């Protein structure tokens, strides 16, 4: 049983809100005005061709990339900017951005485990350094979280001794242990062999069933269709199709989305 910490329902609003987010790298505009909301406990999947801006969008959500314009709100609070009493917006302090990031879990395509730490140390590091837990408490919580992704027996192994699927499950446990309000998955299975994707998708499926709010960038169309509450198809940095899995996968209105799906599913 994976027990995610959900956003306080008291706010009633969406956990994450993206408002007209644009992002340029030099002259190249990668995101061209993206807006959406994610209610608590729902799963949003972002699909699209390579280079359509999916990963950049995900990275803007936790401010690993700073949007060129537009805003992201976490539980009603703007990410990366501070609103002064007179209404002007100024860049937020690094400590405030970090505090908000700690509430957003992120799982990367390349796992990004720290190779000099064991699986357990990877999970407990932020609990100790960011949340200020003492080592014993962090280790308890770390072991519980590793047990939830079925990796308790690998707690003392270094990442180099784990398979790709196991490494990615440790990375999920590392993000999950922080009890985030929302989890971001950036092509979490794309660098895994087909036989290893299943174990990672299973953990993600379980999380979704238990009510974790999730934003998932994936090429696994079957998984997207099965697990998502809402699917967004990105094309050249814009939302080209947006709807329930049924609307997007079965009767897409966008010709581009139809073509993408037929090539992705074939």
């Amino acid at each position, binding site marked *: 049983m994976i027990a995610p910490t959900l956003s306080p329902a008291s706010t009633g609003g969406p956990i994450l809100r993206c408002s007209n987010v644009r992002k340029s790298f030099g002259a190249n505009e990668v995101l061209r005005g993206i807006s959406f909301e994610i209610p608590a406990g729902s799963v949003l999947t972002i699909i699209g061709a390579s280079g359509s801006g999916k990963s950049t969008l995900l990275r803007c959500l*936790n401010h*690993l990339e700073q949007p060129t314009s537009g805003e992201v709100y976490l539980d009603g609070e703007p990410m990366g900017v501070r609103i002064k009493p007179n209404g002007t917006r100024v860049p937020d302090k*690094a*400590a405030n951005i*970090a*505090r*908000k*990031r*700690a*509430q*957003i*879990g*992120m799982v*990367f395509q*390349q796992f*990004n*485990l*720290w*190779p*000099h730490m064991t699986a357990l140390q990877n999970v407990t*590091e*932020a609990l100790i*350094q*960011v949340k200020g837990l003492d080592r014993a408490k962090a280790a308890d919580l770390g072991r519980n979280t590793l047990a939830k992704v079925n990796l308790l027996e690998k707690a003392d192994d*270094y*990442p*180099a*001794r784990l398979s790709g699927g196991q490494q990615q499950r440790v*990375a999920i446990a*590392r*993000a999950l242990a*922080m009890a985030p309000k929302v989890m971001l998955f950036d092509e979490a299975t794309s660098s895994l062999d087909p036989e290893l994707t299943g174990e990672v998708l299973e953990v993600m499926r379980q999380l979704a069933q238990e009510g974790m709010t999730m934003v998932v960038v994936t090429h696994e169309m079957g998984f997207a269709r099965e697990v998502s509450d809402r699917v967004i198809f990105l094309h050249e940095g814009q939302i080209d199709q947006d709807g329930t899995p049924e609307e997007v996968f079965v009767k897409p209105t966008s010709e581009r989305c139809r073509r993408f799906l037929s090539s992705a599913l074939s």
Partner: protein
Amino acid sequence: MSETLRQSLDLSLFWEYRYTVLAGLAQNIYVFLASAALALTLALFVGLSRVSRHRALRILSTGYAELFRNTPEFVLLIWVYYVLPILISKLLAAKFSLSPFLAAVLALGVAYSGFLSETVRAGIQSIPRGHVEAGLSLGMSRFTILRRIVIPQAIRRMLPEALSQFVSLFKATSIVSLVAVPDIMYQVSMINVDQMRPLPLYTGAALLFCLVIIAATQSINILSDRWRKRGWA
């Protein structure tokens, strides 16, 4: 010719003076340890500055590294021992001098911090960006990421290169007798003044240096092999 060879290989005289020579070796080790610590500390700051987001810091640190990497240790030692005190005396308007030991540590420490800062820079830049982003995404500060994620990994990656720098540094301690630090070379020269038998004395000194370096290198190789087996070096 064969007599010369026999003399140079007859180390009984060297053995006779073993305690004096060992006292000299202790001096080499002290100078080495102190200058290695100084070099490593400076190199860490300079290496980090070289990958800093601030341009001024990058320029300054690159200038520092280039200056000291390209100045021979011998010249630097003479400059620190003879010129630096004069400059400081003029600046302070008071008499200032450096002990031979301090001058040697300062000169070698600064010289090798130039080399080591390059190793530190390369080590830090070899850490994948994703490791830093994983830390950021968990809410860690940049300083915590540096301290807990980047530096521990960078040190392990730097180890083979740093090891060869430290071997060079230990060899370089053989020049400190120039400013009268009583090291091996100094002691051997003193014995030679007395005995006038340079061949076995200097051959013995060379062998002793060799022995110490081989022993140290082998121990560190064993250590880094152990790290490699654990998968994190």
